[in-house]
């Protein structure tokens, strides 16, 4: 096998059902934090990941570049998050179970307020914030991921930050 090739992906692509299951489990582990960041840790994260894995399983045979699997799955998840109503009509084949971890990870009043303000953002704004600040993507990469012009992403980010500062009582 060539260096860098993923044996599990190869086995799944060859139709090995155990490999497909393991691959979906691995992807679930990768996608769940992303879904958690997008959905503020709500149970919708499970639905999003389940939807995404259903799609991945359905289209796995069409994957051209095995190395692009994670990025492809992440894009599917992002699309589903941004256009959730459309995808709600689909029946999920893969279901995910996760648990909310006990304890409040955020205890500072400032962060609690910020979390509330971030939760109130619309989905496109939340996705932009997550891609840029949590995924660490540049604005160019973020814009490409969201299929919007870079200028749009930049102006939208500035508007979101200004809105957050206003909401939190800081300078505008």
């Amino acid at each position: 096998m060539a260096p860098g090739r993923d044996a599990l992906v190869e086995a799944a692509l060859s139709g090995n059902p155990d490999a497909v299951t393991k691959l979906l489990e691995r992807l679930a582990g990768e996608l769940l934090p992303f879904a958690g960041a997008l959905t503020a840790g709500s149970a919708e994260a499970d639905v999003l990941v389940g939807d995404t894995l259903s799609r991945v399983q359905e289209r796995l045979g069409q994957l051209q570049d095995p190395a692009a699997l994670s990025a492809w799955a992440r894009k599917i998840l992002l699309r589903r998050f941004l256009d959730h109503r459309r995808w709600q009509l689909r029946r999920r084949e893969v279901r995910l179970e996760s648990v909310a971890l006990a304890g409040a990870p955020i205890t500072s009043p400032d962060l609690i307020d910020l979390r509330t303000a971030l939760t109130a953002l619309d989905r496109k704004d939340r996705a932009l914030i997550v891609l840029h600040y949590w995924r660490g993507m540049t604005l160019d990469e973020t814009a490409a991921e969201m299929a919007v012009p870079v200028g749009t992403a930049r102006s939208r980010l500035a508007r979101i930050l200004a809105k957050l500062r206003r909401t939190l009582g800081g300078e505008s």
Partner: protein
Amino acid sequence: MNRGDKLEGQIRAVLAADAGTRRLVAVRTPPAVSARLVRSALTLGTAALVIVGALAIGSSVRALRSSPVASEPQAATQGAAVGVCAAARQRVLGMFGVITRLDRIEVKRMTAQDLDAGRDPLFKSRPATPPASDTVLCVVAVGGEIRQTMGLIATGPFSWSLFVSTAGADDSIISTSSGQNGTWPPYFDALPNRQPNPYPGTVVEAVGPDIFRLRLESAMLSAEFGNPVLLRANRYTEIVPTAPTITATGVKPGDRVEVSFEREGRDSSSGAYVLSTFRIVTSVSLMPLSNVVPLGFALPVACLVNSYVRATDGASATWTFTCRAGVMTREAWREQLRAIQLQTGWREIESQGTLLQFAKDDFGLTMTIQPEPPDGAFAVTQRLRLGEFPPSAVDCGRARVDASGRYDQALLDCVWSSYVGGRAARLEIIMTTQEGDPIPTSLYAVPGSLSEVTRDLTADRFANAVNRIVTRYACVTLAPRLWATDPSRYSFELTDCVGGPGPKATTSFP
């Protein structure tokens, strides 16, 4: 750091917290349905199907006879039913080609008359040869996606179905009703679930590990079933005390037992009646059940409550509890247990396959829930270990009661302020007997969980030997109670307690 940097740093912190809020437990992938559909279609296609139902508005009714089904259930819903009608339920679970999605399954035992009276007239259908009104039936209700396959003609899908078979008989489903209105048979919940009557008798001899002869006490039953009657346990038999086989219970000839079985339920090879339940009533030769508490068909919450009761008696650090999942699937039972544990503040350590491990950090407990025996799929064992109090709790100190019977009230203030502030706290006060012997009394106050009072009476030289023990009470509530003689002082009153040498609803500290 400027304001922009600070806000961006805070955004990263919040998103990182949100990203780590959920932890993956399981990914449920669909079964490889296509292969099963083919197998089932072939099986059903060669069966002699008799359709006696009729289409109705918004629903369809079908009845069929002699529909053999696949032998193994879907993995996601496997096992767990015990006792009468469990086999019927299991057969329905194995209908892969018919049930393409299973959301819910329940089974009830009733007479044909019960079913006839309780069934919605819209869905009434009768098999070609209706059973006598006193025939005992197993009625299995399924919600999900059901595709009734009649030879090469596929109908449905339906959102619910009712599969009826004769209780104890293991060869056929005598009628099926299905509908598309709602997600559950609209009349099923109102149908009765009649439990079999236990028949008392005396064990005559063991013929094999799971087969024995019994002399029934009722002359009428003896006349009908034989005297003695040959009985056999199978994988669905509820055995009390819990054991893998009848002989493993330690039952001996002469022991008095209660059994239940169905008239129609006979083992084809031995001719024995197949037991739904087997329970030892009196025996001088029971297996030693040291630290093992069989709890029968306890619901998950009852199992946990009972385990707490036993675990806090102070006599042992480790206890094993055996609960049975009853008519629930093992998976559903396990998930309910897990949900209860998480709701009551247990931290999940491990969730691999069927094994569950939890910790109660502020209480120093760990619990392992593991189905046993591995292939039986019915018993769940829990082990609780009483450990050291964790350093995260507030240590309010240790004090000795003075000659006037007083102690430092500030120590109780420390406990109470921690408790109401949501933190666990511990305090030890050493009381003294009139003779001056120490009675260390400790309190573990745990908000949101059981608080514990332990009294070490072992150093009381003048107490009766049987009273020189360590008592431990685990209590749901803790509250200060003012002294009647000095309202400026208080002690703690703990209520809803379990444990100790005997039943006691309340205790106090110190």
